[in-house]
């Protein structure tokens, strides 16, 4: 029992659980959902889960945020001593990039959802798939 207590108190464990839950729910939303809007939400959750994992990669135990705060300290050696204890700034920058990309893609998906709803009046993916095939069929046989 002691081992389990330790694991449940570990932050690491909960970060993993949260990110896995987000990823799995997101994949469920994209793959199994029939509703277009839920697919977009699923995409958001999936990307959030992946981003958590990415930013987690930069964390160091007992390290500080990657910002030099002793600005008055002009001794370069002191600054270097401070920066040596900082967390990895690269994943933070990468996650910043990934978040902005995800925001753009999701906005684009939402605008497509709006257009599709205005055209067909439904957001059921099965109905829409059939409608797409029917449109294709019509355009093939009507082009005279």
């Amino acid at each position, binding site marked *: 029992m002691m081992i389990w207590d330790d694991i449940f108190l570990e932050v690491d464990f909960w970060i993993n659980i949260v990110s896995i839950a987000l990823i799995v729910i997101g994949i469920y939303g994209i793959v199994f959902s029939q509703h277009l809007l839920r697919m977009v939400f699923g995409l958001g959750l999936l990307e959030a889960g992946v981003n958590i994992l990415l930013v987690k990669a930069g964390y160091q135990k007992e390290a500080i945020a990657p910002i*030099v705060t002793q600005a008055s300290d002009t001794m370069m050696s002191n600054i270097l001593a401070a920066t040596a204890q900082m967390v990895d700034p690269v994943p933070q920058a990468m996650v910043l990039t990934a978040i902005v*990309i995800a925001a753009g893609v999701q*906005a*684009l998906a939402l*605008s497509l959802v709006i257009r599709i709803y205005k055209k067909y009046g439904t957001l059921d993916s099965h109905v829409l798939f059939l409608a797409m095939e029917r449109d294709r069929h019509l355009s093939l046989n009507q082009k005279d």
Partner: protein
Amino acid sequence: MQRWTTILFLTGLSIVLFAIITPLVLGQSPMLVGKLINASAVNDTGAANLVTAVVLAYRGLDTLGELAILFTAATAIGIILGTTDKTQTTSSPTAGFIVATAAKVLFPLLLVFALYIILHGHLTPGGGFQGGAVLAAAFFLLTLADSGNNIKHKVTQVIEALAGTAFIVLGLVSFALQGVFLQPWLDKGELGSLFSAGSLPLLYLALGLKVGAELANLLSSLANVEK
């Protein structure tokens, strides 16, 4: 039946993911590049915020690419939703006196806050993206409170074009001077002061304006779909 296969698939997926992810113990990543960057960033860029140094100097091209992606998304949304500069929208009423007044009070505060975040990006947490998002929120707040206050697409378009061009031109100047694209230039100044870190604050300013215009554009396109 289908429900059970779904549940089975998702359970399997969770277990696989758990097995892959668990060995990534928090706080024990090797940090090969991170250590090198931590050791040399202050010398190389003069920025107190090392994340800014990474975003704008070490991985500046990523930032340019991400700017371009946001621009692409805004352009594509413009095409898909058919943006038009409508002078009046009659259909949606204003949100009421209290909200409208609060928006007007908040608007200048938000502008100042956004500019603060952008301009101090190389010193404190924050920067162009965060500040740009606040900037867009400020303008969008006005639209939300009073739908007559549309964000002018022509204006945002010009800002967006100029800011994007400024970012690239700042990179091209260093290309012309030193033969390297997006190398930090200008004097590094004193670490921790507002006018330091060379060209990085200028890059962040361009970035912030671009992101702000872009997001404002994007939000207003989504909000004003032709009825």
